[in-house]
Each structure stands twice: as C-alpha cells, then as structure tokens.
C-alpha cells in the first residue's frame, strides 16, 4: 500500500486491486464505527484508492491507518460472507446498446443477458451522482469501452457497462456507458434512510425480467 499526500487534511491510500480497496474500505469503515479510528470526516473509496480526510487543523492519522491495514492481503478476494448485504435488481434487458455489446463481445444478445445476470458484483465505490455505484465483477466479454460520445440525457434506472464496471444511473443524467437494460428499482431517495440503495462493499445481482 502506498500513501499519498492529499492536502493538509487528507491522505490517499493506493492499493493494487479493486478487491483490496473494498477490503481496506470495509476495515476502515468498521474501525470508524467501532471507535478504533477517530477524527475521520470522509472515508471515500474509488477504483484503486481510498481517501481518508480529517477536520481542518488536524492531521491524517497515517500511522494508525498503516497499523489497521498492516495484514491486509493485496490479493484479497471480495468478501462473499453473509456480513455484506446483497441487493437484487430486476432488469429488463432491452438497452439501446445491447446489439453493440453483443457484437463487441462476439456473442448473441441472449449470451449478454445470461453473462450479465449470472455475475455476482460488488459495489467498489460511488461517484458521478449520488447513489451511482461502480460495480466490479463484470464477466470479461462485457468489459467494453465507453461510447465515443456521451448521450446528453438517459433515463433513471438505465443499466450500463464501461471498462471493468457495470452500474445503474440513479436519475436522468448525461452518460457515456453502453446501455443494456433498465430497472424500475429506486436507486437513490434522499428522504430514505439509507438514501442510497448501493453502498461501497455491498453485493449485487441482476435478475432478468421476461
């Protein structure tokens, strides 16, 4: 693990894989909740890094973070135990780019549906919009580039793929991911507790609607 300075009040932890990020994030979140890591204002995972930031005037607890993560295996597999909540999202696989995704993968549309809905995913991190989860665990043939041009507006609930990730747009927004389907599930509701259906570390399955 590398530690990189991120302002006076922040440190960025750089890890070798998305799985290691998820493992580190889970451990640090539990340490914050359990009172074993004090003073953290934001704990934010991303693709290969985790930001730990503290209040103005304080310094990031770099030594304590190293202690907490000392025995973290760099090739740790995503936790599949019962402690990580599982969310199942019903999806109608009728996305605008389904044919493009099948062509790129060199398979049929039915295979795309089967591949995507048979995977078990982990929420690696959230970003782009409140409640937008970047899910890892995408089968290799579905790991495809973004569209050359973003669409200016795509509907809430659209399910897309881009690079190593799949995800669901929580609200109408611009977006450049290849769209394969749509879910009716509400992904983000600011008046709900918790507001986001997907939280880093959660596991996700997609269930095809016919």
């Amino acid at each position, binding site marked *: 693990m590398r530690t990189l300075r991120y302002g006076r009040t922040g440190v960025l932890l750089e890890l070798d894989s998305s799985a290691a990020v998820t493992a580190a994030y889970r451990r640090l979140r539990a340490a914050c909740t359990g009172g074993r890591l004090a003073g953290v204002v934001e704990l934010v995972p991303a693709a290969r890094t985790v930001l730990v930031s503290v209040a103005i005037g304080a310094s990031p607890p770099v030594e304590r973070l190293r202690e907490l993560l000392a025995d973290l295996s760099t090739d740790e597999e995503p936790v599949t135990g019962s402690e990580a909540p599982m969310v199942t999202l019903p999806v109608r696989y009728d996305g605008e780019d389904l044919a493009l995704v099948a062509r790129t993968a060199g398979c049929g549309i039915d295979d795309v549906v089967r591949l995507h809905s048979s995977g078990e995913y982990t929420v690696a991190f959230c970003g782009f919009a409140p*409640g937008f989860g970047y899910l890892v665990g995408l089968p290799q043939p579905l790991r495809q580039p973004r569209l050359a041009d973003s669409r200016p507006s795509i509907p809430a609930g659209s399910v897309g793929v881009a690079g190593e990730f799949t995800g669901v747009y929580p609200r109408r927004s611009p977006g450049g991911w290849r769209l394969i389907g749509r879910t009716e599930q509400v992904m983000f509701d600011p008046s709900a507790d918790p507001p986001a259906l997907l939280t880093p570390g959660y596991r996700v399955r997609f269930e095809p609607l016919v």
Partner: protein
Amino acid sequence: MRRVSTRTLTVLRPGPLALVTDLGRPGQAYLGIPRGGALDLPAFRLANRLVGNPEGLAAFELLLGGFELRADTGCTVAVTGPPTAVTVLREDGTRRAVGSHRAVYLWAGDRLLVAAPDSGLRNYVGCSGGLDIPAVLGSRAADLLSGLGPQPVRAGERFPLGPASGSPADAAPVPVSVSPDELSVPVLLGPRDDWFDQPATALRATWWTVGSASNRIGLRLRGRPLRRCPDRAQVELPSEPMRPGAVQVPPSGQPVIFLADGPTTGGYPVVGVVDERQLPALGQVRPGSALRLLPV
C-alpha cells in the same frame, strides 16, 4: 409533526443567483454526495452570529447582490461577505443606508436591499431563527452539482423562519476582508504531482486567469498548460476520490480547482490541493481575476 412557523420573509428579487445554504453534507462523499454548503464559511458563520443564531442555521448565499427581501414579520438580519451597500426601505418610503456586517432589525413590511459588492462575489444574509425549510440529508443547502436541496431562490418565494433563540450581536465593527483581483494561494503538491513535468516550477511561473464558466462546482483556470510527463501522456487514471480544493488537470492542461459542490470522484490527476484555509477566498474570486498557485 412539523411546527407551523408564523414568522416569514419573502424574497422580492433574488438577483443573479440566490441560494439557501448552510454547512452542507460532510461525511457522505462515499455515497457520491458532495460536501456542498457555503463557499465562504467564515462569512456565513458570521452572518448567523451577528443575528444571534447558532453558526450553522440556513441563510442566503447571494451572487453579486441585486437582492431584495421583505420582512413579513419583525426579524433581525445581517449581511456579510465582501463590503457592500445595504439599504432598508420603510413602508412610508424612507430609506436608510445601514451597511453590512452588523445586525439590523426589520419591522414587518420593511424591505432589505443588498447591492452588488465592489469586490468579491458572494454575500450572506443571516436571518434570526434561520431559514426553516425541510432538510435533505442533514442540510438545507442547495447543491448545484447533485441537485440535492432546494432550487435557487425565485422572486416571490416565501421562507418560514425558525424560532429566534439568541440575542443579536452589538453593532460593534467586525473585520471585513476585501477580495483582491490578484491572488496567490498556497498549494500542497500531490497526490499526482509525479504525473507532471516539473510541476512546482511550472506552477510558480504561471498566473492563471479565472474562467467565466467557474461556479460553485469549481474554478476553471486558463493559462499556459501544465504538461504531463512523457511516460504519463497517454495513461488513464482509474477514478479517484476528489475533494474541495483539489487542483485537477484534464488532458488540456488547464486546471480546475474543485469547490464545495465539486464531484466526489474524478478520472483526471490532481496535481495539488489548495490549503483548506484559502477556500473561502477562492469562493470570492471573480472570473477574469489573476490567480497563482504557489507550491509550499
């Protein structure tokens, strides 16, 4: 059950952009929720203190004045931020210049006019009891990136006020900061300074112009582009956490300094982070101003 507030005020003219703001939504970036909240936090807090409120109650954040409100019932208000002309207009037509940075009592029917400041961008209007609108995820602040919180204030919009709890501060003078149109701010290099060709030297030598597309999400800078190291030129950075003050450099080499409504993650390298204590000053920098980022 929601208490029915009997004290209200009405915004008659919001000016170019008036928002409800407070201390924002810290601690929720892991869900993709920006921190948000007042850009000039010391000025925001002072507006609350002057009217006798706890520091975090919701207040107005004005962009370039042009703002007018009417007290529907008696209340105390205070305008902070860059110095600006503040006028009270009575129902009988009399006008009184009251000035900024002091508590002013408005009788029912009085109007408060806030002019555009001579320097800087954003004034804050604190109201006794605070703006009592429903909170979203712990805050009443309008977030322009995520769309959380209320929409920008509209002409004719009426706001309930919470119960006034404290005593307004004396009209003793308080220090007022003036925003210069040339500003140097300290920057701590990292986390991705090693992606750039001699970033410290390049930054020291460059005066940037603050671009007109700047807003609460970020300041867009124009100037001699920062160059990536040749071995990083074609490399893509996996999405990384962003934070207010982060100086992100897209392939164009023209940096963006993220502010309170900035995104929580991004795909371009961050060359350095503006010292957090300078963020209030960045919230007051006008487009067209000259800005230098000084590595420390």
